[in-house]
């Protein structure tokens, strides 16, 4: 009985904490501006759309990976899949959810674009170091 209560409460808390954690990661990156170069590459001018997420992730995978940002990208990837699931199921029944999931999916895309920007600058720094050496 005790274990069943713990299981139900933990599952609810897990979902809440996961959503808040992902939103905190996105909120930190949302304050950073995108460079014109990354804006051109990703096609994101001012507001990012959830439909661009997979394309930006593909671009991200073309850049050399950084172990420090892998965890955040994986967490946001899982959050995006969860939002897509909600968008395809619950949001069809509750219209107000639809605008929220669309906005959140757009924020996920912007986070991926910021991660792309970091990886590009990291690759550029590495190249510059090799040239100097």
């Amino acid at each position, binding site marked *: 009985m005790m*274990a*069943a209560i*713990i299981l139900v409460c933990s599952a609810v808390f897990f979902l809440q904490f996961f959503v*808040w954690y992902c939103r905190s990661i996105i*909120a*930190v990156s949302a304050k950073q501006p995108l460079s014109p170069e990354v804006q051109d590459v990703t096609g994101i001018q001012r507001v990012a759309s959830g439909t661009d997420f997979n394309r930006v992730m593909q671009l991200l995978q073309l850049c050399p990976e950084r172990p*420090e940002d892998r*965890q955040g990208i994986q967490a946001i990837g899982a959050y995006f899949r969860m939002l897509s699931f909600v968008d395809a199921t619950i949001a069809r029944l509750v219209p107000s959810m639809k605008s929220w999931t669309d906005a959140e999916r757009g924020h996920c895309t912007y986070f991926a674009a910021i991660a792309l920007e970091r990886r590009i600058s990291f690759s550029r720094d590495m190249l510059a170091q090799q040239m100097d050496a």
Partner: protein
Amino acid sequence: MPGSFDYGVWIVCTLLEACVVVSALRSNSLSRYFFLNIYMGLSFLASVGRYLVISRSGVSSMEYAYFYFYSDALLTIGLYFALLNLYSLVFDEMKVGRYLKIGAVVLLGGTAWFSYAVINQSSHRILSHFAFELSQNLYFVGLILTYVLWGAILKLRETRARLIQLVLSLGVYFSAFAADYALRNLYPNLQGAFHYVTPMLGCILPAAWTFSFFWVNEEARLAPSRLATVSR
């Protein structure tokens, strides 16, 4: 003997634990988040210890079972101190550190007593069952305490982005492990699935804390109330 999956997860998890301490050192945050880093250091030592016990006695040995559950119970107690560290940072200006310490010790003792009482009533009073029951209850109490801390962050309008991320990732970790232990308690015959899931859950906290220490500046700010509300 453990397979390549076990060794892979073990290596990733152990490296991430070391990465947390290195990232904290690099960002000059070691003293501010002292107990968090002590906990990660201890986790690193426990991971190495588990590997040594496995290579000497085997994964199905009693030595490993005892070492695993007791080190886990001790690490969970260590995590309480890490949580206390976060509490003292959030309530820094209110000068309530003494009350927090007393409260944490009372809760810790109470949970240990409750776990012992549950095991004492059952027909097989095995010490490893006590460690298992204690871990499950400690994770759940830790989860409640993290939830209360998150409530305090919202109420006090705490804006430090790194602190907020450390608390939220701790909430994810506690809830994942409390659910995992409860499932293991309810369905003991599903050991095959837990064999893969549990070690991967262990990577959540070091991965999230590495990310926070490495990428999030101590000066970065965000509004926590915006994280908890759904804009329409």
